[in-house]
């Protein structure tokens, strides 16, 4: 187990190194830097001074090593577009908004999705099952930003009971969370149904019925507990996934989160900020995958054995 943990840890480190290297090199080599299109044209001398200030005149590899040395101490430098702050400071200032939005949307879609999936699986191949499956396919086809427009139109513009965007309290979160979480319900419901159906058709469930157990007992003790394993492992990464994927929703509702910042920073070619957010998000994602895998081994002893032997 320890061997496995160490190996996974090493894998994450290599991934982060590679990711940061690729993004770093790309950002420096592609034409059109942050000083490429400015309102006030700069003289050659001035441009060189600026480049020297940010270390842009040195060889790329040297720039990367310098950046890496600071990055391991969580110092990603200063954003070009907001020189009064640090990248790390700005990330931690904006993170709570994205994290809260992603977390609530996740909880919303998981609650509704799991309930729907369980109902469908319990009544497999009935009209109710068909209705839920069809519903989840249709729901999954709506992009979150389209739904965002629709709910703003209905609840903010026409009914005027909820704010259309911006930030200022729990009321401002209702529409974004709904628009973001609703399309995700489809996937959750289908996966829950699949996991439950797979378990229901397994031999030990048939044995349980043969022993004379009643349906409710089999469902709660045999089916649910075993179906939970694949569910946990695919639903847990949803949390960081939705926390980092909220850029569309943040743009529609004008929420001051990391996703919106990433889009804006990319448009302005604010290298330090873009690099900082990318590496930070990659770290968040890989740590969650890591925890999920460990947890997988804890819930399911069979996995532990294969991990050891591999």
């Amino acid at each position, binding site marked *: 187990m320890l061997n496995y943990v160490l190996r996974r840890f090493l*894998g*994450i480190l*290599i*991934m982060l190194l*590679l*990711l940061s290297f690729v*993004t770093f090199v*790309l*950002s420096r080599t*592609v034409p*059109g830097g942050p000083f490429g299109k400015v309102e006030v044209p700069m003289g050659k001398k001035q441009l060189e001074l600026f480049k020297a200030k940010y270390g842009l005149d040195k060889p790329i590899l040297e720039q990367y090593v310098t950046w890496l040395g600071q990055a391991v101490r969580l110092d990603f430098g200063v954003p070009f577009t907001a020189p009064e702050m640090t990248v790390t400071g700005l990330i931690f200032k904006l993170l709570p908004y994205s994290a809260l939005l992603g977390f609530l949307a996740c909880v919303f879609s998981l609650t509704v999705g799991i309930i729907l999936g369980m109902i469908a699986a319990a009544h497999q191949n009935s009209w109710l099952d068909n209705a839920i499956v*069809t519903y989840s*396919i*249709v729901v*999954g*086809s*709506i*992009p979150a*930003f*389209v739904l965002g*427009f*629709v709910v*703003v*139109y209905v609840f903010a*513009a026409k009914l005027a009971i909820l704010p259309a965007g911006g930030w200022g309290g729990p009321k401002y979160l209702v529409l974004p969370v709904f628009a973001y979480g609703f399309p995700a319900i489809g996937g959750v419901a289908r996966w829950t149904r699949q996991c439950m159906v797979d378990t229901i058709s397994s031999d030990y469930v048939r044995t349980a019925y043969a022993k004379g157990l009643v349906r409710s007992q089999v469902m709660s003790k045999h089916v649910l507990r075993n179906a939970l394993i694949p569910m946990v492992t695919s639903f847990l990464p949803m949390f960081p996934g939705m926390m*980092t*994927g909220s*850029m*569309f929703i943040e*743009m529609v509702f004008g929420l001051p989160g990391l996703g919106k910042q*990433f*889009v804006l920073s*990319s*448009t302005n*070619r604010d290298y330090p900020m*873009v690099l900082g*957010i*990318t590496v930070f*998000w*990659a770290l968040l*994602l*890989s740590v969650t*995958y890591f925890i999920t895998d460990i947890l997988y081994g804890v819930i399911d002893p069979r996995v532990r054995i294969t991990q050891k032997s591999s």
Partner: protein
Amino acid sequence: MTRAKSQRNAPETRYASNWVAAWRRFRRSGLAMFGLVYFIIILFVAVMAPVISPYPYDRVDYGITLQLPTWQHLLGTDYLGRDMLTRLMWGARPMLLVGILTGAVGMVIGVPLGILAGYLGGAFDWFIQRLVDLFSALPWYLLVLYLVMVLSPSVWNLILALSVSSWVGSCRLVRGLTFSAREYDFVEAARALGIPTRQILARHVLPQIAPLLLWGFATSIPGSVFAEAGLSFLGIGIRPPIPSWGQMLGQAGQYWMYYWHVFLFPSLCIVISVLAFQGLADGLRQAIDVNVNV
């Protein structure tokens, strides 16, 4: 598993060829048929857009901006007075291009790597596996956004950036399938006869996994359609004046609360397309008649 199933189904499909049986299973799903019909129609619209669209897609007319649907402009006009129907027809092009080519490029990279990794095993397999691990741990949405940004937005760069992550899925699928196909008796027999590996892979292994590849390809389309719409919506996908549905939604930003048509029609196009391709993929899975867990 595949064989056990087809044997069990043998009496029912005895007189039907594989293709006929597959078509029969495909036809059973209403959503799949809808997907197929939609695909044919939208392909026709996309290819024939220059011929059948009523106006040039970039003809600006400030006299008729934001007009609701009329007989001259069946779906109304946008904020520059451009015909919505025309732009929606042209918008089918980037949607199909990105949706199909992203999966295709992913397959061109992923299939050879996956088939070799699954068949050869050993050090090569280990290396490919680590590569797949590495790429699947990347925050791909960020990477795509970033790549499109630095490469400057265009259809081709969008496809390129999306392919960076799309090959992983097909590689993993093909590797798993090849891994089990390697154990089939006829593959072993071919090996025993001394047939070169290249020939075994092309003649014996690839035909075995081809139907599932088709399914894998179909399932990748909705995601790419989503990505194209989303990125164009943010203004970093398809660049104006070439229209794309996501981009039309992004441009509708300030007007849609008062002019419903600039928002409704592009949204419907995106939603229906994703739904149709999902139905198509689902129908293919039923046609192949295999339970896939990947």
